């Protein structure tokens, strides 16, 4: 087991190194001068003398070759310094740190909502295959996959606001430790919207794996020895159908963050997603880089966790 964990961590570090290199090269491969792009965004940038521009370049370290800049940036990043935002001159890590709690909470809540609802519905749908409940939940799942999250968010913001007489989009929720009630008031609606497509995916997956597991030999054995149907479902079917479903959660994590970008943007939650939209609009490359690295780290970390939980759920995997 230890060897397996070490192998996974080394692999993950390599992936992160690759990711940082790709994103760094990407944002530095901009046609034209990076600095001109940045200066065009700021009002005072237009009237700078060539000498001032040169000074800016030296300040931002843009006069050095790109590989050297990557090396310096990576060294600083490893030491916990992600540089300063081009647009605001604030430290990138500080900007991210302030917004991380809300985004993490949003993603956790969406994951909880979808697993608590979709897993039981999927199991129910499978054991009552062909029944009315099965059809209804499948129709909702198919719709959930097709409705864009931004459309759903717009609908909720517009119509819930009008009908329930609450303004959902202007609440900037406090951190959860600064007031649970206010925090949940602001984050419940966005996390419901965010969970929609994940719920649909998980429900479909849960349904089809249960249908597969039900036909396995060990389920037939359990039936043959006269075990109650309830015990068969709880002990044999659900447990064995969970592994592929957990993979779906891991695979969908990056998509969930994509969704969070949109949902935070529409509900005006000041999280990582909203920060990313702002950074990309302002061509704030240090901020884009920092966000990519932090988010990429999260995705890689979740994938390791899921792989380990796999090995824990199914001992056969530990030895392969």
């Amino acid at each position, binding site marked *: 087991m230890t060897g397996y964990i070490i192998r996974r961590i080394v692999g993950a570090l390599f992936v992160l190194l690759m990711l940082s290199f790709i994103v760094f090269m*990407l944002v530095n491969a901009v046609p034209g001068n990076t600095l001109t792009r940045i200066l065009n965004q700021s009002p005072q940038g237009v009237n700078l003398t060539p000498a001032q521009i040169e000074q800016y370049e030296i300040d931002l370290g843009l006069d050095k070759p790109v590989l050297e800049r990557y090396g310096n940036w990576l060294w600083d990043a490893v030491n916990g310094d992600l540089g300063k935002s081009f647009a605001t001159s604030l430290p990138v890590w500080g900007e991210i740190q302030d917004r991380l709690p809300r985004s993490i909470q949003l993603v956790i809540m969406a994951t909880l909502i979808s697993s608590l609802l979709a897993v039981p519905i999927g199991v129910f749908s499978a054991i009552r295959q062909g029944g009315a409940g099965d059809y209804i939940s499948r129709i909702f799942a198919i719709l959930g996959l097709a409705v864009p999250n931004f459309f759903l968010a717009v609908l909720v913001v517009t*119509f819930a606001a009008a009908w329930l007489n609450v303004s959902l989009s202007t609440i900037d929720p406090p951190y959860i430790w600064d007031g649970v009630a206010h925090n949940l008031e602001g984050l419940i609606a966005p996390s419901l919207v965010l969970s929609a497509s994940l719920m649909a*995916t998980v429900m479909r997956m849960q349904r089809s794996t249960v249908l597969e597991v039900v036909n396995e030999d060990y389920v037939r054995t359990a039936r043959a020895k006269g075990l109650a149907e309830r015990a068969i479902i709880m002990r044999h079917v659900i447990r064995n159908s969970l592994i592929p479903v957990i993979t779906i959660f891991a695979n969908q994590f990056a998509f969930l963050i994509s969704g969070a970008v949109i949902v935070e943007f529409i509900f005006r939650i000041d999280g990582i997603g909203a920060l990313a*939209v702002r950074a990309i609009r302002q061509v704030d490359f240090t901020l884009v880089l920092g966000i990519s690295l932090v988010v990429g780290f999260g*995705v890689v970390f979740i994938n390791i966790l899921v792989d380990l939980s796999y090995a824990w759920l199914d001992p056969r995997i530990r030895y392969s």
Partner: protein
Amino acid sequence: MSTATEAADPIALDLRGDSPRWWVTWRRHARNKPLGAIGAAFIFVLIVAAIFGQDINIGGSTIIPGFSPHPASETNIINKLAAPTFPEHIAGTDSLGRDLFSRIIYGARPAIVIGIVATGLGILGGMVIGMISAYAGGVTDLLLQRISDAFQALPPLLLMMTLVTVLTPSMTTVILVIVIFLIPGTQRVVRGTVFSTLENTYIEAARTIGAGPGRIITRHILPNIMAPILVIASVTIGGTILAEAALSFLGLGANSAENPTWGFILFEATQRGNLDRWPWLALTPGAAITLIVLAFNLLGDALRDVLDPRLRGTGAGA
């Protein structure tokens, strides 16, 4: 088509020769997979709208006039924010008095073009890389897989937004960016399929009689992976259209003055205050995106069941 023969066996009908073979096959599938057929029919309507909705001009003269009631950008301030009326403005008008139904028809073209072209190129790229990775093995395989891991560790929307900004938004950019997003996932599936195909004894047999890699790939591997590829392609198109719509919604899509994209029309709607007073502004483009994605997903599900039962419910492309 007489109604009396409708319920009869399609094969028998075919033997009597009163309908063409493709129609018989199509009807048999449509009867087994009614939802897939509905999806296909809706896609057909949209392709017609994408091609014939607007004027087709060759050499400056209009060959076929479009059936769209108005040009997408024709403004009429007097009639702004009008509620849907039949038959003048069946989806209402927006804050500049533009006919929303016409704007949706004009938006079908970018949606369909991006959906099909980007998915096609992305799958093709994934096939090439997946086959190289599986066939070469060793360091090449390891490197390609880790690069693809790195791409997949970035949330797709973040990756696409960054790429579009770096390259400046346009139709070509959006297609390129979606292709880059599709390649890592596709190549992984192709690589896996190629690996399992390589295990077969007929590959060994082909090697024994001296077949080179080129012959093995084109004659033995490609035919075996075409079914899963087709299934992946059909379930991916919906996701591709969604991705473009999300980019458009954030102002980074393939929107243009002549052909507004559905995502951008929805974004425009949100820029108008008191949206609950003119809900058609948001409902029309939102419903258009939902329905087209739904149609491609339904068709994809049906195709998957018909072509490759093993992939059923894997959520590939979902």
